């Protein structure tokens, strides 16, 4: 199994917060994921990398309980996510935060109300405390000045930061990020990376980051999994994966184009000889 890396905790199952077993996804005829096994350890920054269309986002949706896989299972803190009772699933969801690629902020609520929403809906805290917590979370991501704005008037980077603030509103054990730096300039992307690492260090939140941004992955990851064509192509500590000799991993890490496809000079067949 591709869980073996130099720091393998073999047998210490308790350090694994999330375990995915033989995840397989089929949409009609298309196979998106094909037998993905992985384990995410408590307190680490785990990065899921791979080219567009390799199944990263699908994997994320399986891991956080939004999309049941065709085959295989996901367990969080020892509970099978897709065999859980509605109450247990609700409980597991509250221990999980998710920052969507486009933010997915509710358009009818201000940024502050968006961040306050999970607290208001899932706790009995007094409204004043809820707002104070929400303001605190917004300040952590550097967005307090935009608290009263509607999502439609935010820039891409601000939306992502607001989404992160909302994802950490309930002090989750684990937060998933879908392409946190996609569509951002390098400076804003680095700010987001910084927020992720800071929250990981200070609160010990387990971070699972799906990205195709190589510099960002290298900057934040403790461990990395590389998906290619719906399979685990490499899994392990960051430096190990970064130096993996597998040619396809090398292609990806070194941003080399894959071998030429059939495009090219085949017009020659139509030339007069």
């Amino acid at each position, binding site marked *: 199994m591709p869980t073996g890396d130099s720091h393998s905790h073999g047998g210490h199952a308790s350090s694994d917060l999330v375990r995915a077993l033989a995840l397989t996804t089929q949409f009609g005829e298309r196979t998106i994921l094909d037998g993905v096994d992985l384990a995410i350890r408590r307190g680490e920054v785990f990065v899921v990398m791979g080219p567009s269309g390799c199944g990263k986002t699908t994997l994320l949706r399986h891991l*956080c309980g939004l999309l049941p896989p065709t085959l295989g299972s996901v367990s969080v803190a020892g509970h099978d996510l897709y065999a859980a009772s509605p109450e247990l699933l*609700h409980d597991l969801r509250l221990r999980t935060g998710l920052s969507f690629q486009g933010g997915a902020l509710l358009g009818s609520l201000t940024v502050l109300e968006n961040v306050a929403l999970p607290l208001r809906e899932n706790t009995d805290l007094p409204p004043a405390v809820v707002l104070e917590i929400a303001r605190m979370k917004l300040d952590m991501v550097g967005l307090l000045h935009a608290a009263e704005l509607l999502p439609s008037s935010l820039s891409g980077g601000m939306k992502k930061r607001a989404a992160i603030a909302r994802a950490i509103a309930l002090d989750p054990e684990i937060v998933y990020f879908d392409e946190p730096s996609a569509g951002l300039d390098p400076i804003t992307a680095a700010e987001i990376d910084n927020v992720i690492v800071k929250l990981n260090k200070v609160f010990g939140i387990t971070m699972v980051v799906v990205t195709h941004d190589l510099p960002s992955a290298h900057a934040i990851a403790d461990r990395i999994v590389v998906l290619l064509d719906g399979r685990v192509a490499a899994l392990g500590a960051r430096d190990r994966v970064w130096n993996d000799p597998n040619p396809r991993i090398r292609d990806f890490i070194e941003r080399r184009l894959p071998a030429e496809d059939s495009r090219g*000079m085949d017009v020659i067949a139509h030339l007069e000889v």
Partner: protein
Amino acid sequence: MSHPTITAAATLDRTTVGRLVADIDRELRTKPARLYVDLGAVDSFDSAGLGGVVAGMRAARAAGVELKLRGLSQPMLDFFSLVSVQRLVKPDEVAKRPDPVTRLGAFVEPMVDGALTVARTTWDVLQELLLGPVRRRWLRLDRTAIEVDHCAAGALPIIALIAFLLGLILAMQAYVQLRVWGAEIYIADMVGVSVMAEIGPLMTAIVLAARSGSRNAAQLGAMVVSEEIAALEQMGIRPLGFLVAPKVVACGFAALSLGVVFDVVAMCGGALFAWAVAGIELDAFAEQLRTALHMSDFVVALAKAATFGAAVGIVGCALGLRVQDGSEGVGRATTNAVVLGIFLIIVVDAAFVTCQRMLV
């Protein structure tokens, strides 16, 4: 050489490519074994021009003619290196027309699917409202109030206007008929009964379908597209309790309250016409109304209006939450929410009238 040759003009771009394609087509019709296209004279070209050449190659291949190019310049070769000519000229796979059963299935399936979705949503909402309190989940009054503000308060002016005008129109129609027998006083019966039994609940529900059914479908559909629904679920907030149930209750309540407003305003309109044109005193009109209408009719009318409203709410929410393919899907869901909503109103109406007549 016996093979025909077509020579392209010095400029091969979107303004001249039509001529080249026509030339190639004409030559192909003579069925030569081989056709040469000489591009040697071309000194400027664009992708439309070379697109025409590729189109010619495809036509030649389909006609079984070997087409050879001559005189390609280096820029043209560079251009062709970006694409695979073999892949481009490969004949299209002709999609086979599906058999009649498959086509019928493709036509019927979305309807059945939509009906099942509406049925399931109805079941879910009923469960939420009836069993929710048992599970300590109460209707979200704060969310419901926001929806009522839109569905009911927002529709008040247009409902009042339509009701008043329809009251006038019905009175006018009745007056023309009743005048012949000198029975003008029965305008009150005509207006009162038709408005309360049918026109009031129906018109209210149709306005509601157009205003709020469409709004619900579009709003929820857009929320699906922007992953807001997924985000809510992920935060442990059930869309059914947070969005759908408040919207359905608000639509039911709006239809009920607007229905009452409609009845009253339409009867006022009728009375106004009767007084102004037919010379019937307002007291007499009111007295006549009192004998024509019964409390039980009023209760049935209210129940009907509330059911219509709830149906409109359920259809809008069910179709909105089912949106799959982006903005196109949102548009389709919105259209269907209004069409299916109005259709369902009529079906429910038929069921109501049948039950009512069988019981009485």
